[in-house]
């Protein structure tokens, strides 16, 4: 195996390792941190099923964002869905052995790269040209978009502009990563850029704003049921306080002198 192949193989595992460890850490942190008070935001669901529907609407339709800003919603929404389609389309590369029928049918998902780029460009334009969004942007916010645009654009060049790498090598490299049967990867620069940036994206997931993905599920304003009067909601640390010393029942039941 060439040195490049070895380095890229290592990069891949390294980024996955960071991703898994970092993300697990964050998810455990979020789930262990108590939400001491009921703070659902209106329109708040009164039942669990309502919370489920709310989450579905937020995660799949970006409902609040739609209310807030139609342009941001439009660009953001098509970008995210395009990303999902392109992710599915890439699964075939990694499938060990014969690619299953369904994955073969996802060939046309490659066209999702167009809305992907349009969405990202739109978001970037807003970040640059709307003074309010420019004000709140850090270098990392631009870099994130540039990173994604580079991934998308390099992929499109390979797919549509005939800079095909050797597809046989792509398949065996990708499959090899899954089956631990490592093999040579195509050395086309454009391909290397494409996958290198993907590795970066995976690695920075747990240490960047990409944490919005797990975060949305843990957001107390969105995931709480509005039933504070009916069920006593109390966090572990507040309960501790109650049972410890600060308010003993007797003390509280004393009559006014």
């Amino acid at each position: 195996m060439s040195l490049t192949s070895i380095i890229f193989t290592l990069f891949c595992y390294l980024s996955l390792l960071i991703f898994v460890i970092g993300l697990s850490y964050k998810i455990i942190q979020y789930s262990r941190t108590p939400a001491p008070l009921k703070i659902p935001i209106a329109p708040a669901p009164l039942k669990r099923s309502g919370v489920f529907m709310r989450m579905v609407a937020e995660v799949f339709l970006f409902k609040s964002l739609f209310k807030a800003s139609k342009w941001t919603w439009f660009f953001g929404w098509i970008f995210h869905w395009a990303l999902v389609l392109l992710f599915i389309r890439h699964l075939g590369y990694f499938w060990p052995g014969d690619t299953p029928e369904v994955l073969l049918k996802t060939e046309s998902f490659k066209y999702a790269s167009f809305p992907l780029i349009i969405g990202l460009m739109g978001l970037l334009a807003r970040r640059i040209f709307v003074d309010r969004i420019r004000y709140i942007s850090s270098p990392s916010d631009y870099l994130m978009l540039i990173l994604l645009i580079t991934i998308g654009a390099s992929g499109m060049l390979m797919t549509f502009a005939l800079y095909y790498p050797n597809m046989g090598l792509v398949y065996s490299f990708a499959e090899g990563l899954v089956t631990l049967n490592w093999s040579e990867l195509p050395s086309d620069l454009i391909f290397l850029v494409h996958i290198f940036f993907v590795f970066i994206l995976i690695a920075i997931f747990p240490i960047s704003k990409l944490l919005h993905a797990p975060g949305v599920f843990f957001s107390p304003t969105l995931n709480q049921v509005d039933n504070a009067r009916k069920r006593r909601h109390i966090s572990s640390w507040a309960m501790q306080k109650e049972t410890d010393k600060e308010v003993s029942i007797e003390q509280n039941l004393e009559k006014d002198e």
Partner: protein
Amino acid sequence: MAEVDIDKLPTYIEIPAIQKDAMAGDGPFKASAEIQEQLGFPGEKIENWQQVAIEKMAETTSKYRSVQVFLDACVKCGACTDKCHYYLGTSDPKNMPVARQDLFRSVYRRHFTFAGKYFPKLVGAKELDDAMLDDWYNYFHQCSQCRRCAVFCPYGIDTAEISMAAREVMNVIGVGQKYSNQILGRINKIGNNLGMPEPALRDTLLDLEEEIEKETGIAVNLPLDNEHAEVLMVTPSADFFAEPHIDGLIGYAKVFHQSGVTWTMSSYASEAANFGMFIGSYEVMRQGALRIRKAALDLGVSRIIVGECGHAWRVAYSFWNTLSGIGGGASDEYALKLQRQLDSNYPQPQHIIEFTYDLIQKGILTFDKTKNDHRKVTFHDSCNVARGSNMGDIENGQFILPREVIKAACNHFADMPKATIKSSTFCCGGGGGLLTDDLIELRIKGAMPRMQALKQSQENDGVNTLAAICAICKSQFSKVLPNYDFDPYMIVSVHQLVSDALVLSDKSQTKAEDSL
């Protein structure tokens, strides 16, 4: 009328271009050592304040999932940037919700995240230095914690949670706000925000009884510390002394009178408002809730009803059960003791609007709506009721019930433009501990979006009365309405509308109905 330079109201709300440092300044008056110490906070800025502040931030992120998740999840999409009335009214970019959060987030990133520790410039991580602390103090006191931004954020990021957290950090290092902390000192000592002791309160209530009798010829009681009452009524103390609040109190009294349900107020817990929420202190907020718990236990009441106060209702509805066990569905001994005493046939606590609404539904109240015919009424959804509570245990009940009560008492009602009411309601501009004269410029400018909507309703529907169910809203509007060429007396309590149209019967002759 306070003199502050404001532009004429626009025909529709335009998103202003940012004007950096438009509201730069020292922020509201700081609390004196005496005030701070009363609440158990250091009297002045402590020596090692940075270290203590960072430690407090660590504690807060570990105790509040909201803060932890919100600090991580923001993608800087900008959806919230034009949703804050203070940004719309002042154009200061630090009043954009995300920029306000970023004051806190940049320090969080610097101290608690990998990227911020090693690449601070890249991710906008900053040190908590003097300049940053000044910005915190100034801009976290330009947030009324109205939560409008959270309605529009794709992750429900609630800037109010961040501003509460920041205010608590500041209190812990000895940098407190005079207005809120002084009030908290009073409630802990005397039982209400005004510092009105029991005899004064008793006199006020007697005066009111006389006034009602003189006006209507019917004896209506406003009982205090009555141990045999069913209902403990907890209302903001503003209801005891100022217009237009007091007319609301008269309204509650008349409703209770007609219902035949016995009720009482408590001199020990004569305050529904709970500024503990504004300063983000669970502990202080809990002390307020415990006073009410104690009053309920001492008086042996079976129901607790809360008067017209926005944040009080949020605290009561959403937090009381947690803080002090006033509610239902407890499994722990502490809360059960109280919950066994309370009548589980009614929601605990209940809002006075819910109480009145129920009576209307049951046909127990009779109105002469023509008494309100000179009024064309619109309703201002107060933030904390609209976005942090419910009424009637039906979806969106907090929007439906007050409107139904108004419509039962008035013939003419019209809502303000859709984008400015219900869950999207604009804050009055004075909530969250900002209702103080040292913030008058902010209050006037922050009221602009609400005033603009009101103007539209005035022009389109001839609206001449603005009804609200929040003491802060009422005070704030009385003050700022003239700045926008409105009549300051157009703001009324919803229960004033009820009071004016309610047909009273002489209960000393007919026996109180047992049907309730």
